[in-house]
């Protein structure tokens, strides 16, 4: 019984091995003809890679920044929160609060804002504009 089982498995193994080697051998014959046309650069760019940046839409960035400010306890009047509101004039934040908000935005979009550009962000639309100009923000 064992002998027949061994023989059967050996036979199936050899037949599979032959079949596999056949399939491997086949493309190597025609590859020199096919590959040139198949791997043109235009065909590669058609599909988006998994590592590629997805890009952010403007409404999404605005929504995330407004949500962030909604949870910020020093905002005096939450009803004035809009995509155009100014941090100090509309929301009643002082200059140090503005610094904290900018740091929170940095964390939210996982980017690093240089000090000079961070000083220029005083309103929600400025922040949205900056985030949209950064390809690394996500």
């Amino acid at each position: 019984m064992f002998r027949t089982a061994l023989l059967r498995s050996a036979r199936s193994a050899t037949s599979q091995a032959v079949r596999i080697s056949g399939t491997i051998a086949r493309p190597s014959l025609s590859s020199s003809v096919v590959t040139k046309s198949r791997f043109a650069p235009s065909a590669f760019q058609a599909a988006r890679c998994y590592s590629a940046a997805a890009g952010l839409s403007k409404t999404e960035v605005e929504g995330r920044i407004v949500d962030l400010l909604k949870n910020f306890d020093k905002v005096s009047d939450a009803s004035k929160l809009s995509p155009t509101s100014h941090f100090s004039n509309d929301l009643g934040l002082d200059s140090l609060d503005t610094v904290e908000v900018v740091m929170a935005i940095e964390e939210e979009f996982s980017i690093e804002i240089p000090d000079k550009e961070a000083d220029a962000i005083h309103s929600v639309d400025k922040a949205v504009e900056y985030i949209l100009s950064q390809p690394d923000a996500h």
Partner: protein
Amino acid sequence: MSTKQAVSSLYRRSLKLALDWSVHRHLWRGQAMYIRSLFEANKHIRDPRQQRALFQEAEDLLEKWKHPDPYHAPTAPGGSKFERNLPAPILDPPPHIQM
């Protein structure tokens, strides 16, 4: 640079430095509140000479606690992913040469 800008720059740099040392945001939060209280304590000082002394003191503290390996976002200059996967400069194939 006005005093307000100088103070917010100092505040931002101290927060960044605190974040470098305490990597996690939940640990950093308490330190940020402490730094905020230090800044609030000297809020009403109007004398320029006293202000200058305070600025100098803060700068000295920042220099003293400077981090040897500060955190950079991966895609920022100095980060581990900075200028990775740049687009190839030339995508057109070279012209075909007839021998």
